[in-house]
C-alpha cells in the first residue's frame, strides 16, 4: 500500500510539469497585456518600456517560463504585476474562504446525495423516486449564478433569514453552500441510485435475502456499502472541481476566494496571479484523483489485491 502511494505521488511530477507548461502558455499566448493595466493616462512610451523591463516581460517566453518554474521550486510564486503584492499572500487570503465553501458544499452534496439516492432506489420508479430525480435534473441544469440569485431572493429578501452576501458570519455561508451543494447533490444522487440498483441485482444479495435478513438491513448494510465505491470516486474528483467551480457563486455572493481572485487577475492579465490560481486548481484536481484512488484501495479489498 505504501509503495503504491509513493508510486502514485511520483507519477504526479511529470503531470505537474506538463500542467505548468500548459498554464504558462495559455495565459501568455492569449491576447492582452498586464502593462496596459499599469500605465495611466499621461505617462509616456518610455515609462511603458521601463515597466515592461521591470517585470521581465521583454524576455523570451522560454526564459520567462524557466524563471517562473525556478521560483516555484523554491516555493516562490512571484509578485503580482498589477496587484503589486506577493502572490502567496493573495492566495493565502483567498484559500481559506474557498476551502470552507468548497469543503462544506462537498459535505452537503455527499450527505444529501447519498441519502436521496438511497431513498430513490428504495422507492424505485414510484412517485418519490420520480420527484427526487426531477428535482435532481433541475438542480444539475440550473446555472449556479441564477440559482444563487433565486436563493437570495427567497431566503434573504422575502424570508430575511440569511444575509444577502459577504463572508462576515457563518450564516453568510449557508446560501452559497446550498447553491453549490445542490448542483453537486444531483450527480451524487444519480450515481448512488444507479450503483445501488446494480449492486442489488448481484448474487450475494439474493443469498442475503435467502438467509432471511430484513430488506432494509440488506439495503443499508450491504447494498449501499457496495455501491459507495463509485460514489467515493466521483466525490474525490469533485474536490478540484468544487474549488474552481465556485467562481460564479463567489461573485454572486460577493465572497472572497480563489475564483474571484482568478477572474480579477484574468481581466487584468496579471500573469503571476493567474498562473498561481490555475496551478492551485490543477493541483486540487490531481490530489483529488489521488485521494479517490487511495480511498478506493482502502475500502475495496479487490483493488488492494490487484496492487500486489
Amino acid at each position, binding site marked *: 500500500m505504501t509503495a503504491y502511494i509513493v508510486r502514485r505521488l511520483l507519477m504526479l511530477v511529470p503531470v505537474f510539469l506538463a500542467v505548468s507548461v500548459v498554464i504558462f502558455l495559455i495565459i501568455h499566448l*492569449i*491576447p*492582452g*497585456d498586464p502593462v*496596459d*493595466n*499599469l*500605465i*495611466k*493616462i*499621461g*505617462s*509616456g*512610451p518610455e*515609462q511603458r518600456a521601463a*515597466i515592461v523591463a521591470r517585470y521581465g516581460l521583454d524576455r523570451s517566453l522560454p526564459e520567462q517560463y524557466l524563471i517562473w518554474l525556478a521560483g516555484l521550486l523554491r516555493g516562490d510564486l512571484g509578485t*503580482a504585476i*498589477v*496587484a*503589486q*503584492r*506577493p502572490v502567496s*499572500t*493573495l492566495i493565502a*487570503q*483567498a484559500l481559506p474562504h474557498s476551502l470552507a465553501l468548497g469543503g462544506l458544499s462537498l459535505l452537503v452534496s455527499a450527505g444529501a446525495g447519498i441519502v436521496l439516492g438511497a431513498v430513490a432506489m428504495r422507492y424505485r420508479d414510484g412517485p418519490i423516486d420520480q420527484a427526487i430525480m426531477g428535482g435532481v435534473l433541475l438542480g444539475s441544469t440550473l446555472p449556479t*449564478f441564477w440559482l444563487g*440569485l433565486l436563493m*437570495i*431572493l427567497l431566503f*434573504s*429578501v422575502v*424570508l*430575511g*433569514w*440569511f*444575509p*444577502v*452576501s*459577504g*463572508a*462576515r*458570519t457563518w*450564516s453568510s455561508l*449557508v446560501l452559497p453552500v446550498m447553491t453549490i451543494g445542490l448542483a453537486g447533490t444531483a450527480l451524487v444522487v444519480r450515481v448512488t441510485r444507479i450503483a445501488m440498483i446494480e449492486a442489488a441485482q448481484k448474487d450475494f444479495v439474493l443469498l442475503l435475502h435467502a438467509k432471511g435478513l430484513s430488506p432494509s438491513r440488506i439495503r443499508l448494510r450491504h447494498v449501499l456499502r457496495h455501491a459507495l465505491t463509485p460514489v467515493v470516486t466521483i466525490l474525490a474528483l469533485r474536490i478540484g472541481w468544487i474549488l474552481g467551480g465556485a467562481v460564479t457563486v463567489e*461573485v*454572486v*455572493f*460577493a*465572497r*472572497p*476566494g480563489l475564483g*474571484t*481572485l482568478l*477572474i*480579477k487577475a*484574468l*481581466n*487584468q*492579465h496579471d500573469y503571476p496571479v493567474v498562473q498561481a490560481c490555475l496551478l492551485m486548481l490543477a493541483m486540487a484536481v490531481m490530489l483529488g484523483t489521488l485521494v479517490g484512488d487511495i480511498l478506493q484501495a482502502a475500502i475495496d479489498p479487490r483493488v488492494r489485491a490487484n496492487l500486489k
Partner: protein
Amino acid sequence: MRKLLAKAALAAGICFAGLCAAVPAVFAQEATIVFNTNEVGAPTYNPIKASMLNAATGLIYDMLVEQDADLSFHPHLAESWEEAADGMSWVFHLKKGVTFHNGEPFNAQTIPAWLELFKESDNAYMSEAIDKVEVVDDYTVKFAMKHPDPNLLYNLSSTFMAIPEPKAYKALGDKFGVTEAIGTGPYKLESFNVGSETVLVRNDAYTWGSPLSKNTGPAKIQKLTFREIAEESTAFLELKTGGVDMLLGVPTDFMGELKSEPNITVLTLPGSEVAYMSINVTSAPFTDIKVREAAAFAINQQEILDSIYGGVGAVANTFLISALPESQVDPKYLVKYDPERSKTLLDEAGWKMADDGIRAKDGAPLKVSLWTQSDTSFRRLSEVVQAQLKAVGIDAEITSFDSSSIRDQYKSGKQQLAVRSYEWNNADIVDWFFGGDRLGYPNTSMFNDPKAEELRKKAMSGSANSEQRQANFKTYHEYVLSQFPLAPIYQPTVNVAYNKDRLVLPEQIHGTEVGPVTFMDMTVKE
C-alpha cells in the same frame, strides 16, 4: 410524541434563522457602503505604488489640494500656493497642527521625504516635472521645476498623490497599505480584506478637513465599513434589504427599480465618462475625411440618450466632458446629429445610394466593421449606432471582443469604427487617445497628423500657466474634432443610491465624486 419533536425542531430552526438574520444588526453612527464595481479587488491602500485605488483611500489620507465638482482647485493640506509667472517654481504654504495617525507631525519636512518615495513608483510621471523641493520654513515648501507643469494642481489633487507618513512607509515596506496605512485623513484603517471589506474608524484628532465640507472635523460617523460586491444585482438586493446603507455606483439599468423603493434616494452626479465612436483614419473608406464626417454626423446623440439611457446623463458633442473648460469649443466644431449633411457629404465623396439602402461606389458597397466590447451595455449602444449608420446608407457589421483582449486587437490597426468609452476629467485625454506615438492603442483612430502633433506638443509642454494650457488644449481639441477621427456620443452620470431612513447627506455634493468631502458631512439617523 413524534409530532411534538418535529414541532420543537421546527421552532428551533426558526429561532436559529432569526438569530442569523439579527447578525448584521446596525448600531448607531456606523454605516456600510458598497464600492463601485470597477473598484472591486483594489489590492492595496498604498497610494505610491498602487495602480488602482478605491474610494476609501481619500478617507485615510489627505491631499495637498482638493478638486471640486466644477473642477476648480481648493486648499486642503496646502492652505495656499503661489505659482511663478514663468511656471518654473511653486510655493505651497502648509496647514499647521496636522498630525499623522501615528502621532508624527505633518510639516514641510514631510514633502521632500514623500516625493522621494514617489520617484521609485510606476506613478512617478505625475511628479516628474518637479526638479527640487526646497524647505523654506517649517510650513512652507518651494518646488523648483524642470519645466512648467500647469497640470501640477490636478496631479496633487489625485488620490495617487495622497500623502502617507514617510517613516512608517519605509518601516512597513510591502505591508504598508495592506496591514497598516498611516495618513492624516479623517479615518484610520482598522482592517482590510482584499476583495471583501475595509473597516475604517474615525480619527478623533482630525480638525483639518477641507473647506469644501461644512464640517472640518472630526467626521460625524464613527465607523465606516466599505464592502466589495462585484455583482450589481447582489449589491442592489443588499441595499433593498437594509444590509448596506449606500451604493457608490449604480448602473443606469437599475435606476427605475431603485426609484420605486420608498426608502432609497438616488443621486445622479455628472461623471467623467464619455462614450464615443473612434474612426480609423488610415482604413479606407475612412481615409476620405468626407466619409468620416458623414459617419460622425449620422450619430443621433439625443435619440441614444432618450431611448437607451432614459434621458439620464447628457449628450456628448465634443470629446471632453462638459465640465472641462476645454470642451467649450467654437460651435462650428461641435459634432451634432445632421443626417442631411451626412447624406450630402457621402454623395460628394462618390458614394451613391443603391436600391438596397446601402451606398456604393464603383460597384463596391459601403460596408465597414464596427468593433466593441462584449459587455451588454456596449453591445446595446453599438446596435443603435449600427442602425443610425444604416439610415444614411453605411452598412456596419458589429464584431465584439472581451474587454481585455480588445486592446491587443486595436494594436493590429485593423479596426474601422469602434464604440468605446473612457473615464477621465482632464483635457490631456485628447493627447492620450490621439497622440501620434500611441497608434493602435490608445490611439485607436490611428490619427497621426503633423498639425495636430504640433498643437499637441504646445498643449502638453508649451504652456507656462493654466490659462495658457487651457487655451492651447482648446485649440488642439478643436483641431482634432475638425479632422473627425471620432464621433462623440454620450456622457453617463455617476449614480449613487442610499437608504434615506439611515443616512443624511449634505444638500450639495462637493468634490468630483461622493468622496471624503461628502463623508465629512454625512450623518447616520439615530
